[in-house]
């Protein structure tokens, strides 16, 4: 990228960041945003087509002229695999301040999501986190993370988000005190001590992956970690072979029992390294909300699409998730995942990963390669 082009891209990027943050700020003020989703989405897609070479090629391959993108749905979505193979950013690599990476696979490639300006990510995460999992909680709120700290896992977007929540919700505490996985080991005793020291009048928020919670539950056995009234527990992600697999409802029940909270206070989060926004179950927000239904912030949408045509499908039908995330200013506004989803009243349901092609022949399937431990 040349110097002039670079500064032009930076100015355009800064302006887009400001517009997205205005949408987020309006949400926080419970005001109506003056910015229409489609207008901002179209400007983002055109910006990315101009400044991210891969996206320009994808538009060409899909027969989409960037200057004609007028709605979010006009913009081709970037498959998550592209983050493993190419630079998905609209700036000089030297300008990257933070790079989040996906976990590794047998084929070695890790997805990378680089940020020149992480402020929009942070604003989006905090705004929707406060409106969902931390709704109604006034700082200081103890944040207990059953996971590694950002210092230990600097390329984990989840660790970053948890650190962000710890600093924002519990500003008086040194952030390291919030994390209870150190050098890969779960500090159950430390967690016990911290929970025991919580004030009964101050609710706490526990943030954890599903597999970390399974390990914690296994460690606890019949023991409990009773949290103060009003506390919540976030669970996110699958098991990825890192713990035994537990059916979702059973895990929710076990978590609620272990922390002595209501099942509706166990809140699921759906996020991805390739995104800047997260989606949360709305059980704390809406008493009619069902567990397993994820709500979207006004700056991000999950659109189920047909996996062959990539066209949106009707509400109630199962498709793969095309995520339109306005906070992905410098990377990919629209991301094509491999997660199966269905639109339902109040949001979308997450139905797991797409299975690979069924057996026809002895050619190895991609999902078999990615899950293999290597035979010879």
């Amino acid at each position, binding site marked *: 990228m040349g110097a002039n082009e670079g500064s032009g891209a930076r100015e355009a990027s800064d302006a887009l960041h400001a517009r997205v943050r205005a949408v987020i700020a309006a949400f926080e003020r419970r005001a109506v945003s003056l910015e229409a989703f489609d207008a901002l989405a179209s400007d983002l897609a055109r910006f990315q087509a101009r400044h991210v070479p891969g996206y320009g*090629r994808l538009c*060409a391959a899909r027969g989409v002229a960037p200057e004609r993108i007028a709605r979010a749905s006009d913009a081709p979505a970037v498959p998550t*695999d592209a983050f493993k193979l190419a630079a998905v950013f609209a700036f000089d690599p030297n300008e990257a301040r933070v790079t989040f990476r996906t976990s590794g696979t047998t084929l070695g490639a890790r997805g990378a999501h680089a940020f020149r300006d992480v402020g929009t990510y942070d604003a989006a995460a905090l705004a929707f986190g406060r409106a969902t999992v931390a709704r109604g909680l006034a700082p200081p709120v103890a944040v207990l993370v059953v996971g590694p700290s950002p210092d230990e896992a600097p390329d984990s977007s989840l660790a970053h988000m948890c650190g962000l929540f710890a600093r924002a919700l519990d500003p008086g505490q040194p952030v390291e005190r919030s994390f209870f996985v150190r050098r890969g080991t779960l500090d159950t005793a430390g967690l016990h001590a911290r929970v025991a020291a919580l004030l009964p009048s101050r609710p706490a928020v526990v943030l954890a992956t599903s597999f970390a919670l399974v390990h914690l539950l296994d460690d606890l056995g019949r023991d409990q970690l009773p949290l103060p009234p009003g506390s919540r527990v976030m669970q996110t992600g699958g098991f990825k072979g890192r713990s035994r697999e537990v059916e979702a409802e059973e895990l929710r029940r076990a978590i609620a029992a272990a922390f002595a909270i209501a099942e509706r206070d166990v809140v699921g989060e759906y996020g991805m390294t390739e995104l800047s926004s997260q989606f949360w179950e709305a059980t704390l927000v809406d008493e009619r909300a069902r567990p397993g239904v994820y709500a979207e912030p006004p700056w991000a949408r999950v659109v189920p699409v047909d996996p062959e045509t990539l066209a949106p499908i009707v509400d109630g039908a199962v498709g793969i998730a095309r995520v339109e995330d306005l906070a992905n200013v410098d990377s990919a506004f629209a991301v*094509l995942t491999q997660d199966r989803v269905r639109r339902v009243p109040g949001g979308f349901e997450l139905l797991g990963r797409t299975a*690979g092609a069924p057996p026809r022949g*002895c050619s190895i*399937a*991609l999902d078999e390669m990615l899950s293999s431990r290597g035979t*010879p």
Partner: protein
Amino acid sequence: MSRTVEERIADVRRLLDAAIAVHADRAQLAPAIGRSSGLTPEGVELGFASLETTATAAELRALVASAGHAGSVHVILSANVFVGALRAIALARAAAERVTVRPSPRDPVLARALVERAADPAITLTAVRDVGSVAGDEVHVYGREATIADVRSRARPGVVVRAHGPGMGVAVVSDGGDVEQAADALAADVVAFDQRGCLSPRVCFVRGGESAAAGFAAALHGRLLDWSRRVPRGSLTAEERAEQVRWRGTLAYAGRLWDAEHHAVGLATTPAAVPPAGRHVLVVPAPSREGLADAIGLLAPFIVAVGTDDPSGFAAPRHARLSALGRMQRPPLDGPVDRRGDPGVEKRASPVP
């Protein structure tokens, strides 16, 4: 009484004779094979060219030596490339005096035809689905990792399970050869069985820089177009079509893509973007020997076959079948196609002496 090596070879030869008869009758079998495999009539005819009907004495001796010994073998066939049934049954017959064959319920045609024409009283067809009821010495299972794991978990104690899992082929093209000739030969390997075989090449390393690789990719695209006129691609499943759309989008973004209705060739600097089956090839430049060795090493656990126009220019994985381009789908009948071995066998039991 155990058979001599010559008797075992003679038993395998009866299967080769059956294969000759099946090949002669292929017009009758082709429609059913087309329905089960998704291949076009031209694709079925091309596939029949890979059905082994001859083998040298040395090859059969090697096949018998690789087969081991067992009193009885139960063969579980998956919806493999359709000609794969012959080698599977031949290996079992070389090993054992009694063989039961359970064809794939979805693709039973060739296995049934072979067993019926062989008329070998030692080989019987079965529809038994519960592997836990099989009381033989060995079970030979062909299929996906999940199928293999399921069979292992259900097999009776003491029964040795020999697994033949899925895999893939890769190609290596030298930097001084005839590009068009290499591209045409590789296209022949790709088109066979619509690339659904474990020998089918899906990644091709081209010695040299990106421009050499791009030149080869363009040539391969042209040859695949020619092939698709002679041997149109068959139907893909919905999942295969979805994988194809996803891979093409990824390569359009992350590299270069030569796109056609019935095939696509992608160019990327890493082999991590392995394409799905269905006539999709990833071309990767290999500017250095060290880089090529690393890239092949990354894929080695999945590689069953390597095709090349210059075997002196690199080291193929020791277990891989090495052949000339255009010959990848025709390995000699000298043992299992896949020589990666089955570590699960060693974990479960020692081979029968």
